[in-house]
């Protein structure tokens, strides 16, 4: 039944993530790739997610879609709209919550969120059948097999064990979600009347909060720093970075290196982004050596820092040191975060060209052209030279 719905074959957010990590089954991987050939929206979406610095940056998604609640059904995986329309997912919530009384009352709960007449006709009973819940879960697992995040299966257990309390009709999910993520309400949807229409109808659903299994969310954003895009690792690095006075007047390499020390007795500390800003400032002013030292200092502690890898490479490149630049670019190209992937390939090609490795260089320029991004024209120009 599910397969006959046109949207049911589309991958969920979880599946897209697994696909990009290469963890989906071969058959489902191929199926998704077939779908991308026919479905341009899916193709663009996968490309868009791939360009995110770290795929797990779900707060962006959750802020739009509402709390991502994995409740053991494929419906949960699509995301749940937080404000007015959030109650639409109550089907699964109410079903789950009603399992506690399912042993005594074998009924099916349907929540129609906006139809008052339906409410009158269909007395909502806080109960559900275990079989229906199982059906939802087994349906999901049958369709997408073992590659679907096992969290969904675990969440099924949580939902089954949720108890039903006798509460009033108003759900407090929204406030729970907002508290958790400090996200402002979706004002536009409120003004469209979705939220109020549902609240007014007084949905007779249990407001007992089920245990919400939240997938771990890693928030990495791309922020502008002095007109350059930078991955914001603030939450994952040391909090205090020190730029000593030595860097203002660059002396010996030793002084410069020490100037970027992250350990200092001084009270003047920089945040990670502040430190990056200082390095970028040196780069913008043409002080490539200083910038390179600064980025190398980051790499000495965080060897996978993409900002340090890429902009450190650029510092070496602009300082006409293609070998050192290439070393960092090669690491950047393998970094799981793909934020600078296209420019990395482009500058790898440029460095190889400088080193007279023309064949390898041309191959990379072609790769850039294939990607059809912002560097395509420049890559074509380089090939034409």
């Amino acid at each position, binding site marked *: 039944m599910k397969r006959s719905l*046109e*949207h049911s074959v*589309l991958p*969920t*957010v979880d599946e897209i993530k697994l696909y990009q990590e290469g963890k989906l089954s*071969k058959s489902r*991987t*191929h199926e998704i*790739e077939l779908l991308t*050939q*026919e*479905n*341009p*929206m899916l193709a*663009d*979406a*996968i490309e*868009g*997610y791939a*360009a*995110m610095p770290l795929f797990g*940056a779900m707060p*962006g*998604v959750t*802020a*739009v*879609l509402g709390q991502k609640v994995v409740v053991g059904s494929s*419906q949960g995986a*699509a*995301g749940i*709209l937080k404000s*007015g*329309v959030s109650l*639409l*997912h109550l*089907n699964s919530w109410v079903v789950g919550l009603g399992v506690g009384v399912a042993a005594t009352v074998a*009924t099916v709960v*349907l929540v*129609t*969120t*906006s*139809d008052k007449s339906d409410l009158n*006709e*269909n*007395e909502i*009973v806080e109960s559900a059948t275990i079989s229906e819940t199982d059906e939802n879960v087994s349906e999901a697992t049958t369709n997408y097999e073992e590659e679907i995040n096992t969290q969904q299966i675990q969440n099924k257990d949580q939902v089954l064990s949720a108890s039903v309390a006798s509460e009033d009709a108003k759900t407090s999910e929204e406030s729970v979600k907002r508290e958790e993520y400090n996200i402002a309400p*979706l004002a*536009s949807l409120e003004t*469209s*009347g*979705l939220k109020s*229409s549902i609240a007014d109808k007084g949905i007779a659903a249990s407001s007992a909060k089920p245990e919400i299994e939240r997938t771990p969310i890693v928030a990495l954003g*791309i922020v502008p720093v002095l007109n350059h895009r930078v991955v914001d690792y603030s939450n994952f690095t040391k909090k205090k970075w020190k730029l000593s006075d030595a860097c203002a007047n660059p002396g010996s390499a030793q002084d410069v290196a020490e100037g970027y020390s992250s350990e200092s007795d001084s009270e003047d500390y920089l945040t990670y982004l502040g430190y990056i800003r200082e390095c970028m400032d040196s780069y913008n002013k043409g002080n490539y050596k200083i910038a390179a030292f600064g980025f190398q200092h980051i790499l000495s502690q965080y060897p996978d820092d993409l900002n340090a890898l890429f902009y450190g490479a650029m510092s070496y490149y602009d300082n006409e040191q293609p070998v050192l630049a290439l070393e960092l670019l090669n690491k950047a190209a393998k970094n799981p975060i793909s934020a600078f992937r296209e420019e990395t390939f482009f500058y790898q090609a440029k460095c190889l060209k400088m080193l007279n490795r023309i064949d390898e260089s041309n191959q990379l320029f*072609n*790769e850039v052209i*294939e*990607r*059809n*991004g*912002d560097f395509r024209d420049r890559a074509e120009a380089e090939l034409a030279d």
Partner: protein
Amino acid sequence: MKLTFVISENRRLFFKKKISQHTDIELLEKYRQDGKSVWIGELYNRYSHLVFGLCLKYLKDEESARDAVLNIFEKLIAELKSREVSTFQHWLYSVSKNHCLMVLRSESRESKRKVVYHREVSAHVLEEYDILSHAQMREAGLLRLEAAIQKLREEQKVCITQFYLKERSYKEIVESTGYSIGEVKSHLQNGRRNLKLILESTI
């Protein structure tokens, strides 16, 4: 008595179609009939993650993508009341893409983004009309198709054969041929276009 009432009501509920079981067209029809946002909400649940990904691709910024998704679905709420849409996914794709491109234009991004816009528009048009679809490949008949595939360039032949006939993934094709993933996609796209031309010329 009450139990009977509950059971009888639930018997009716039991057979009532769940909102998630409606097709897109049915949801649109219901929305046009009664204007209840619950139908649009279901469509939102189905496609919002794809719209968000699409907005990420064009706007390259999470905040802007988030805003764009909201704006797009607000548009849906207004437009779908009166508009008849036969293929919701395609229509949603057009609306979303146009919205993103409008945002890019209105924010006066750097000129290279306009190049991206033109390139994307023309590429999209090319994809829509000039490339053999899967359905057309099935209709072409296996023998004709195999004969046509033999006429392709070597790299296109290899990729088409491995992807469509042997049902391998991009990654597997990359590993077995040594092509980059961009080259594989390019060969598949060009191969399908050429297959269409070959099949049309042999009719």
